[in-house]
C-alpha cells in the first residue's frame, strides 16, 4: 500500500490498496486532474451540473464543492449551477413519490449554495424548436487561449471581492416541477406508445438532453457536466454500438461532446469506476437520493442497455480489466471531421439527437414525410431533399412507436401504423405517391411529439 501507515480499507483494480485518507486524496486529485488535463472550462465560465440524485452525480457535485472551497491558486474557477430533471412521469412514479424525492434533492441543493433548477420532464413539451437546432460554435478570434485566460483571471482576481463572486452566483433558483395535466398525459402516452424498453430508454435520454440543453441556453450556461462513470460509459459504448449509434461514439462517450455547438457536454467522472464512487459516497457521507428509473428491477434481457450492462458487469467480475480496456479503447475514438471548404454547407444533424447524420438517401425519405406536419424543414435549405432528418438509431426508436394518432390534416387521416414493419412502409409508400400539401405555419416542438406520435 502506498502510504504504509494507515489500514487498508479498499482495493481498486487488482492490487492497489488504499487507506481512507489516501483514497480521499486520490479521488479528489483525479477530478482535478481530469479538468486540468482537458482544459475546456475557462475561469468564470458558467457550468451546469446535471444531477440525477444517484451517487455518481452527487459525488461530482461534492467534488465541485470541494474544488471551489480550496485556497487559490488551486481553486476551481468556474461558476456552477445544478439541474435535476424529474422524469417520474415517464418512469411511472406517483406524484407523492416525485414530490418526496424533489424535496430531498432540494434540501441537498440548498446546502451547496449553488443556483439550482428542478424541472419536470413534462416541460419538454413547451420547448421551442430552436432546441433542435445546433448553436454556432465558431471561435471568436478575440477569445484568449486557456493559459492566457487563466493568467488574466489571476491578475484580475486581486480586485474581485467575495461579494462580487457571491452576487454573480446568487440567482433565482428555479423549481419548475409543476406541469399541466395535458403535458403529463402526453408524456405518458408517448412512452406507452413505445413497445420496447430499449426505445423508451433511448427516448428518455433524448428528451432529457433537450431539456437540459434548453435550460443551459436560457440561463447562459456554456458547459454541462454529466456524472457518467467509467463503468457506465463502458456499458454505454457497447450498447450504443448495438443501438446503431456507432457513428457518434466519440461524442457519446468522450470527455467533451460538442454536438450542440454553443453548449458543450463534459464528463469529468469518466475516469472513476462505479466501485470507487460507491466507496467514496459511503465513506465520506455524500448525500444522494435513490430514485427508481425505467429499468429498476427489470430482468437482464429487458432492453439492450440492460443486457449490455449485465454482460459487462459479469465479465468484469471474472476479468477485472474489462471496463478499463473498454474505456481505453473509447479514449482512442475521435470523430473525423470532413475537409472544410468555404462553400461547404455544415454537416446535417439528426433531428432528435443532433449528432452528425450517418445515413444516406433511401427509405429515410419516407419517414420524413411525417415531418411535413411540422415546420421543422424550414431550417433546411430549400434545394435539399427531405431525406436527411434522422440518424439510423433515432429512426429505429421512432419506428418502435405503436400507433400514430389521426392528425388534423386530412392527408394523413387514413394513416395507420401497422404492426409489421413491412406493412408500415407500404402504407407510407402509398402516402408518398400523393401530393403533400405544404405547411405554412410554424409548429412548436410539442407538435412533433404530441401530434405526430400520440
Amino acid at each position: 500500500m502506498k502510504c504504509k501507515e494507515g489500514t487498508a480499507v479498499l482495493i481498486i483494480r487488482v492490487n492497489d490498496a488504499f487507506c481512507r485518507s489516501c483514497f480521499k486524496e486520490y479521488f479528489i486529485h483525479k477530478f482535478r486532474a481530469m479538468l486540468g488535463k482537458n482544459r475546456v472550462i475557462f475561469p468564470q465560465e458558467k457550468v451546469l451540473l446535471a444531477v440525477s440524485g444517484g451517487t455518481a452525480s452527487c459525488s461530482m457535485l461534492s467534488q465541485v464543492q470541494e474544488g471551489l472551497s480550496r485556497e487559490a491558486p488551486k481553486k476551481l474557477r468556474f461558476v456552477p449551477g445544478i439541474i435535476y430533471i424529474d422524469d417520474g412521469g415517464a418512469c411511472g412514479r406517483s406524484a407523492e413519490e416525485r414530490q418526496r424525492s424533489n424535496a430531498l434533492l432540494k434540501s441537498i441543493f440548498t446546502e451547496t449554495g449553488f443556483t439550482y433548477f428542478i424541472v419536470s420532464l413534462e416541460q419538454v413539451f413547451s420547448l421551442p424548436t430552436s432546441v433542435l437546432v445546433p448553436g454556432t460554435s465558431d471561435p471568436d478570434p478575440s477569445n484568449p487561449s486557456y493559459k492566457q485566460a487563466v493568467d488574466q483571471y489571476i491578475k484580475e482576481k486581486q480586485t474581485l471581492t467575495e461579494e462580487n463572486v457571491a452576487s454573480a452566483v446568487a440567482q433565482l433558483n428555479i423549481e419548475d416541477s409543476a406541469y399541466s395535466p395535458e403535458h403529463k398525459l402526453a408524456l405518458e402516452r408517448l412512452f406507452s406508445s413505445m413497445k420496447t424498453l430499449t426505445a423508451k430508454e433511448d427516448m428518455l435520454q433524448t428528451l432529457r438532453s433537450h431539456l437540459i440543453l434548453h435550460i443551459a441556453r436560457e440561463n447562459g450556461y456554456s458547459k454541462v457536466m454529466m456524472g457518467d462513470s467509467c463503468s457506465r460509459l463502458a456499458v454505454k459504448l457497447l450498447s450504443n454500438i448495438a443501438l446503431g449509434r456507432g457513428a457518434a461514439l466519440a461524442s457519446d462517450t468522450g470527455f467533451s461532446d460538442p454536438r450542440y455547438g454553443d453548449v458543450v457536454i463534459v464528463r469529468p467522472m469518466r475516469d472513476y469506476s462505479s466501485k470507487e464512487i460507491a466507496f467514496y459516497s459511503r465513506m465520506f457521507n455524500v448525500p444522494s437520493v435513490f430514485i427508481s428509473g425505467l429499468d429498476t428491477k427489470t430482468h437482464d434481457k429487458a432492453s439492450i442497455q440492460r443486457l449490455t450492462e449485465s454482460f459487462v458487469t459479469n465479465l468484469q467480475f471474472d476479468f477485472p480489466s474489462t471496463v478499463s480496456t473498454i474505456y481505453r479503447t473509447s479514449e482512442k475514438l475521435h470523430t473525423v471531421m470532413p475537409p472544410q471548404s468555404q462553400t461547404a454547407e455544415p454537416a446535417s444533424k439528426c433531428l432528435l439527437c443532433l449528432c452528425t447524420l450517418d445515413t444516406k438517401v433511401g427509405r429515410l425519405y419516407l419517414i420524413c414525410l411525417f415531418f411535413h406536419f411540422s415546420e421543422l424543414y424550414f431550417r433546411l435549405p430549400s434545394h435539399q431533399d427531405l431525406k436527411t432528418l434522422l440518424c439510423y438509431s433515432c429512426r429505429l426508436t421512432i419506428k418502435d412507436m405503436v400507433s400514430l394518432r389521426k392528425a388534423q390534416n386530412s392527408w394523413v387521416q387514413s394513416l395507420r401504423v401497422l404492426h409489421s414493419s413491412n406493412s408500415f412502409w407500404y402504407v407510407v409508400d402509398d402516402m408518398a405517391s400523393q401530393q403533400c400539401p405544404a405547411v405554412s405555419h410554424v409548429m412548436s416542438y410539442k407538435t412533433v411529439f404530441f401530434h405526430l406520435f400520440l
Partner: protein
Amino acid sequence: MVTSMRRSFNATLKCQPEMFPRVRKRGGAELLFDGVKNHHVTLPGQSDPWDMKQLLAWIRGNMLKERPELFMQGDTVRPGILVLINDADWELMGELEYQLQDQDNIVFISTLHGG
C-alpha cells in the same frame, strides 16, 4: 447512514452471533428487502463461527423478499454489488471466507445503474 442507487438497495446488517439462537429483525430493506435499509439481526448460534458464505445463504433464505437473482449469483453476491465489512472492502477480509464477529457491520451497495 446508507446510500442507495437505482434498482439497488443498501442494507446495513449488524450481526450478533449469540450463544443462544435468537433471530430478531428490525425493519426491512430497500426494494428487494421491502424498502427498508437498516437491518439489525441476530444470527442463531452454532458450533462453528459464521462466515460470509453462510450469512449470504441465511439472508437469501430469511430476509430476501423477492427477485433473489438480483442480489445473489450462486454462492456469492451478484457482480455489481459491493460488500463492506465494518466499512472496509470485503476483498481485503477474505470475501466469502471471512468469519463474522459480534456487532459486525455489513453493508451491501449496488453499483448498477447509479446516477
